[in-house]
């Protein structure tokens, strides 16, 4: 069974927010909330500053604290692509998973259940990419099976430098950010 993940090239991302709009439209995300977002980090000392722009979302962690703390099993690791998903009808809205996620990836949907990025599972089942990946005008996002050594994501991770967010939190994220320039 596949283990889906994403690779995002920070050197190509311009922070246009197309991925955010695509997600909101595709998944009918309610006003005031988002399942993916843009983070911008400026580091260094003037005048040698560098800026990294990242499209962020649930990291589909391999070691997901949000799943471990859920009292009803609503948050679970699904068989399909080993994705971390939420069953709305099982969620009691206790918000433990919101507190457990170090990335702030979850929110409470106005209808009461915990909500977050699903990697557009409904699209994956049709053989399509997640909406954010497919609309990116700079093609900075790659999606695929991390367990398949021949997938594009695996080959990118093999050949380029990458990082995950807050690796020290121990969640083993499955979204990788490429940090070097494309060859």
């Amino acid at each position, binding site marked *: 069974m596949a283990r889906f993940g994403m690779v995002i090239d920070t050197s190509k991302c311009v922070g246009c927010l197309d991925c955010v709009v695509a997600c909101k439209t595709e998944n009918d995300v309610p006003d*005031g*909330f988002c399942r993916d977002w843009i983070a911008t*980090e400026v580091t260094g000392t003037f005048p040698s500053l560098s800026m990294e722009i990242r499209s962020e979302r649930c990291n589909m962690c391999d070691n997901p*604290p949000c799943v471990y703390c*859920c*009292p009803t099993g609503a948050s679970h690791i699904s068989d399909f692509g080993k994705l971390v998903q939420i069953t709305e009808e099982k969620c*009691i809205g206790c918000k*433990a998973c919101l507190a457990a996620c170090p990335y702030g990836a979850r929110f409470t949907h106005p209808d009461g259940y915990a909500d977050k990025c699903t990697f557009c599972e409904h699209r994956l089942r049709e053989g399509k990419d997640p909406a954010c990946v497919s609309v990116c005008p700079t093609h900075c996002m790659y999606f695929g099976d991390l367990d398949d050594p021949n997938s594009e994501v695996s080959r990118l991770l093999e050949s380029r430098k990458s990082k995950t*967010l807050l690796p020290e939190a121990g969640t083993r994220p499955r979204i990788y950010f490429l940090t070097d320039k494309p060859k």
Partner: protein
Amino acid sequence: MREYTTTNSNPFVDISHQVWAWEIPVYLFLGGLVAGMMVISGYLLLSDRWQKPKSVAYVLPAWSLVLLSLGMLALFLDLEHKLYVWRLYLTFEITSPMSWGSWILILVYPALLANLVIALPNALKGRFPSLATLSDRMQERPWVLRSIAVVNVALGIMVGIYTGILLSSLGARPLWSSGLLGPLFLVSGVSTAAALVHLLAKEPEERAFAVRADIGLLVTELVFIVLFLIGLMNASRVQQEAASMLLGGPFTAVFWVLVVGLGVLVPMVIQSLAVARRIGHTHVAPLLVIAGGLVFRFVMVNAGQLSHWTPT
């Protein structure tokens, strides 16, 4: 320099994105208080103290049932998907403290009811003669009495620790990342319960017992608070940053003045003076302990959910 901006919702900017509001601190406070009352009433049953006709052993179970139900109501009010609450009881999730807690709380009600029947208040005795007969029969069998007492103490300890573990299991919040949080919440819960016993006790001897016990509990709580902070300060960078919220950061004044000062130190001094017969017993000390326990839960929940992992 590091400057971070995000288009994601931010609880520092929009308070409505905070995870928990007043309900969870109130639930944790009442849960800890009831846990402490179960420990104390179990102890009263095991010792001979409960046989005094005016013993608080006759009122604690009823108070516990009411306060626990209020706590559960607060918890229920916090749920965002209320109609699905029954889902808690269709599964047991071994890694989820909340799942453990909901099953333990199911056991707490029968334990409290059994305690209520065996130490039946006079008001109920007159009204429900069959309950009075049952109560007498139970009292005649020492093993029944002992079992009820031990189960109440054991469940009380579990619930008390659980109120802390519920937070400390959420590793994404560095302020809560301490194994001491469970014992600290337990001691604080028993201490607030001892304070309530002080307020409710009619037997002077029982009141004196509650005061002496509370002094010991407050000292223990203070030691745990200090160890908890020392632990965080010697842990990872994010835990040090979290601890600094209470050590110079935004929660410093409320924590040290209201929780440690007025909630622990002042009542400790007042009660010690009363025990040494320098001053008379007053209700001020137990009221301060109870209020301090409530503020403590608010500080820990609010500061804790604002503490978070930051990149190196």
